[in-house]
């Protein structure tokens, strides 16, 4: 993977992870152009497109677009699964963290939403960095990723 962008329907960037060396100016230009291209696509169109010389895989979850740029030999369908796995991780983390220490028996159907990612953007990055490294998946077990985050969070000095 070369980069991953998360942006809202208004085109506001919520997360940008770059795995290739590019200057700030270049990153800004690419983000702007790509966001516009994707927002212009109709809902019925497929999740893959060719843009410049990259393969783009994107999917919309509620009000957020998750967009990845992958290399030629990467499998687009499994990239969709990677995006989905990340969303699941975010969901698990933001959905239940607040309840961890209160009552483990009560299950509240809180799902992750854009606001969580806005207000806790650094956490979103930490989670991504436990799931992907250098553009490739480092851990395929949901449980292990979440455990690592949990442990690291505990290390944070108060």
């Amino acid at each position: 993977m070369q980069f991953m962008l998360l942006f809202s329907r208004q085109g506001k960037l919520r997360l940008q992870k770059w795995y290739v060396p590019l200057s700030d100016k270049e990153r800004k230009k690419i983000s702007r152009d790509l966001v516009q291209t994707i927002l212009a696509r109709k809902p019925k169109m497929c999740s893959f497109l060719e843009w410049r010389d990259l393969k783009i895989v994107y999917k919309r979850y509620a009000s957020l677009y998750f967009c990845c740029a992958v290399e030629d030999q990467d499998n687009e369908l499994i990239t969709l699964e990677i995006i989905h796995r990340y969303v699941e991780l975010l969901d698990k983390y933001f959905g239940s963290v607040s309840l961890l220490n209160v009552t483990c028996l009560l299950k509240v159907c809180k799902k992750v939403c854009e606001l969580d990612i806005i207000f806790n953007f650094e956490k979103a990055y930490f989670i991504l960095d436990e799931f992907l490294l250098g553009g490739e998946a480092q851990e395929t077990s949901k449980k292990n990723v979440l455990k690592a985050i949990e442990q690291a969070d505990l290390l944070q000095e108060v």
Partner: protein
Amino acid sequence: MPAPIRLRELIRTIRTARTQAEEREMIQKECAAIRSSFREEDNTYRCRNVAKLLYMHMLGYPAHFGQLECLKLIASQKFTDKRIGYLGAMLLLDERQDVHLLMTNCIKNDLNHSTQYVQGLALCTLGCMGSSEMCRDLAGEVEKLLKTSNSYLRKKAALCAVHVIRKVPELMEMFLPATKNLLSEKNHGVLHTSVVLLTEMCERSPDMLAHFRKLVPQLVRILKNLIMSGYSPEHDVSGISDPFLQVRILRLLRILGKSDDDSSEAMNDILAQVATNTETSKNVGNAILYETVLTIMDIKSESGLRVLAINILGRFLLNNDKNIRYVALTSLLKTVQTDHNAVQRHRSTIVDCLKDLDVSIKRRAMELSFALVNGNNIRGMMKELLYFLDSCDPEFKADCASGVFLAAEKYAPSKRWHIDTIMRVLTTAGSYVRDDSVPNLIQLITNSVEMHAYTVQRLYKALLDDISQQPLVQVASWCIGEYGDLLVSGQCEEEEPIQVTEDEVLDVLEGLLVSNLSTPVTRGYALTAIMKLSTRFSSVNRIKKVVSIYGSSIDVELQQRAVEYNALFKKYDHMRPALLERMPIMEKTATNGPTEIVQTNGETEPSAVEPKHLPPVTQPTSQANDLLDLLGGNDVVPVIQTTMPTKPASAGGELLDLLGDLSLSGGPAPTPAPSVPTSQPSFLLDGLSSQPLFNDIAAVGIPPMTAYNKNGLKIDFTFERANPNPNIAVITIHASNSTEADMTDFVFQAAVPKTFQLQLLSPSSNVVPALNQGTVTQVIRVLNPQKQQLRMRIKLTYTHKGSPVQDLAEVNNFPPQSWQ
């Protein structure tokens, strides 16, 4: 100094801003506060400030003044500081700035930290944005961690190693020992990242590839376990166990099995198993199948497996999910060359995808459809493709039109079908066809002799409807100019002939000249067409009038043409019919270039020859009977071309210029100029040198013959059937000289009876060397549509030992195969 506000507080505040200006103001205020806090070297709140800075950076505001602060955070002992510091480094720093190198030492220390999460941070940052220098410095540490038993660190080290190798390929060797037992790990994270590392190494180095081939059995085993093992909650995705790992293993197998029979055989079974057993109801199953298909197609798999793969793709095409259809079309496009027949079976599904709503799917379906067209399915496919051409977006039309022309040319079942198809494209997508299709189409139409009347009629009717599509208009005007007589005489056999008068035709052409829709090129075509009709129609006066009007046109091209045509009417009226006669069959050339160097048939043709022949020159359709009497009748072609350069300075001087100009001002297309003979041989000779091609290819079974043998001059004929038109016989003459003196100024001319058409190309030279030291060769093309017995009268002129020699002879002994 009050404590800086918290991150969440800031975010909340900024979000309350109602306008961009308000937001900018808030940000600037906070930035100022952060800057002063940095200046004070405040350790306590540095982390908070940098976090806020990162948020503002994401909104698009400059944050470069925080770069050094990130480095300070990384160097801190607190985990929170390090976390934000490394995040800031990844977001704000890039390897183009030297400041990033300051990180190297910190990362090195952190790679050896006692807390694995700190080590993890360091590995992550290095693996994400490490520059080549950093990688070189720290590769050793990464290699050490690759051998650790801590799976949390081992998996990160593996991906970090991948990054190092990508940045500094020479370092690949040093990671080799550590890879030894990577695959014996049980931990899926380590397995997955190890496979990625192995893949990277194999892709980059053939030696590594050879070295790791021995891992194939192990990989097959791991894959097998994944498929066969029961439900594993930790790695399960919709009933499939660790699809990410499966896909990566399949990809590595692909690389290992490519062009290696043994490895390919070893993985045959598992591939078949995955292909048949994977659940296809969800995307994840299809993702695995997709990777499997890619692997099967790339390795040396047996044919049964390949057919299985193509069938999977065929099923994908029927899937409701458009992503799957997209992926299928892409893969089929890659395999259509090698597994053509298998892909053909799914042709109807592919053609259905032309109607898909998604642009990318449509494009792929179109490319694939063209790849699948063959002689058997041409009619059906063309129907679908033409329908697609009608309704597709403009971005497709040019490619589609070109594709249709190519396919039609290769597989047209009949001439009429071909012309109809061309008409359809021109009328529906006429403005999108490529520029070079106009001359191609004209050449095609010329060669379909029996369809001329039908073609010109249809084109005329199309012009009546719509004159906005330039390529259509250009082809139509050319045809009307050429075959207008057929149009007016109502000779069409293929369909109901229309009644049209000469005046109506001229109205249409004049309309093109004045219309705002016509481009200058089109106007040129129209003017030339009108001129040509002067020899085919009787309303010459009207044409004269039109032509003279344009003698003062602002458009230089039109003006030049009009002036020259005027001159034709006035001074050279006797030449007009010959110049404007029907175009002969054109040879399809590879280069399709415009008129190149004009080659003529014999530079030093004695001028005595030509004046005699000019007056009796008439149209080929005229009743010049007993053509065997006058050589001028039918071989207008060679005569005029030979006279050109040798015209004496008198009246001929202007004629030379006139004809010279005419041949070169043939407009953008090479041939639609008035049929100046000089343009023909060069056009025909494009890419051909006259003799070797035809000489060496002896006619298939047609024996050569001696046509003439007198006074030491011997002329042999060799034969060949020209493709694609079997009615054309290609004769190559070989002139040899057995006397002791050279025969110079050698000119060979030929005439044939009325039912034939003859074309003489340039000779190889006009000196026949003495004592059979060499031959002069020349190519004659004879069109014999009525398959009558070929007869020919030839005239030879040359200079031998200082005196001119001339001889006439009849050639009747053509072998039957040459004209049957």
